[in-house]
């Protein structure tokens, strides 16, 4: 049997971290979490996940910068990243999608929408 896909959730807000982690578990994934970008990148590098759910406004470096750093690590270059954030400005969304994000979900999010996106990313048709 294949092991459960691993999802890394990086968010500094404990509520969102918990909700996103619960939704990812519901999608059938094993979840690891990080409360900031740098520990998140470190975790990802040590053990590459199958998907990263990444907040944008993080206390140490931005989610976008974290995504860039992950992309430079060969083992993480192709890991799907879904940004989930309150940042709804067009330039921000555009920048996130230009980084090759698999998805951009605005907070507060619809749990069903996030669940669908996680499933699509970890169990592609």
């Amino acid at each position, binding site marked *: 049997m294949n092991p459960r896909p691993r999802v890394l959730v990086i968010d500094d807000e*404990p*509520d969102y971290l*918990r*909700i996103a982690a*619960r939704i990812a578990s519901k999608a059938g994934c094993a979840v690891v979490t990080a409360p900031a970008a740098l520990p998140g990148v470190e975790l990802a590098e040590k053990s590459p996940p199958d998907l990263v759910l990444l907040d944008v406004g993080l206390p140490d470096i931005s989610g976008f910068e974290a995504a860039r750093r992950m992309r430079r690590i060969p083992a993480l270059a192709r890991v799907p990243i879904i940004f989930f954030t309150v940042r*709804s*400005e*067009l*330039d921000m*969304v*555009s920048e996130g*999608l*230009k980084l090759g*994000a*698999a*998805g*951009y*979900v*605005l907070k*507060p999010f*619809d*749990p*069903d*929408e996030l669940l*669908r996106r996680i499933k*699509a990313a970890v169990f592609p048709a």
Partner: protein
Amino acid sequence: MKKPSAACVGSPELRDFLAGTLRGFSLKYYPSAAAFLKAPPARGLAVVEASLPDMAGRDLVAVLRGDRKTAGLLLVLVGGGPYSPAAAALSLENGADEYFSFPPDSTLFRARLLNLLGRAAPGARLPEKPAEYSFGALRISPEARAASVGGERVRLTALEFDLLLYFLRNQGRVASRTVLLEQVWKLGTEAGTRSVDKRIEALRCKLGRFGSKIRTVFGLGYIFKL
């Protein structure tokens, strides 16, 4: 004369439908939000599918409406599945000018869009968010933070009002007690799920005959269905 322009953001099925329906338009196709956001047009019509590969269509509409450069676009959301008044209301609330479920009736679709385009002269005022939700005798005004049933004001606490708005915006979706605590109370689970039950009971009582629309889903939480 220059052809009116229309952008299609969505699946090839939507593109084919628009190609057949919007004859006389210059139609540009974008398969994803990322493709559209590379150089979004400032004017004209954009028909956006509700479920895009990289974003919810509703979120994309809110983003486009909120930006100075793209706020003048005429935005039409096209949802999947049967027509849902709740999905339509939510789409308009997020800034869409129109909502259809796919596939819309092509004659009506074309007529409505031509109407919209005819009204959208340059410099025309942007559509405002609906000031009120109205479901029969139940009316809710998010801005005034007021609710009424049959014209009678329903006196809700701030928390009860937020709870009602959360239900309205997530109609037909099961909300667990924990999610309600997190998304409405904004407290995490420390408040305890018992306080959710108590507040919902109070809201049900205050909403009179609409109170029964908040149903308990055993073992899961609550669902609001009108």
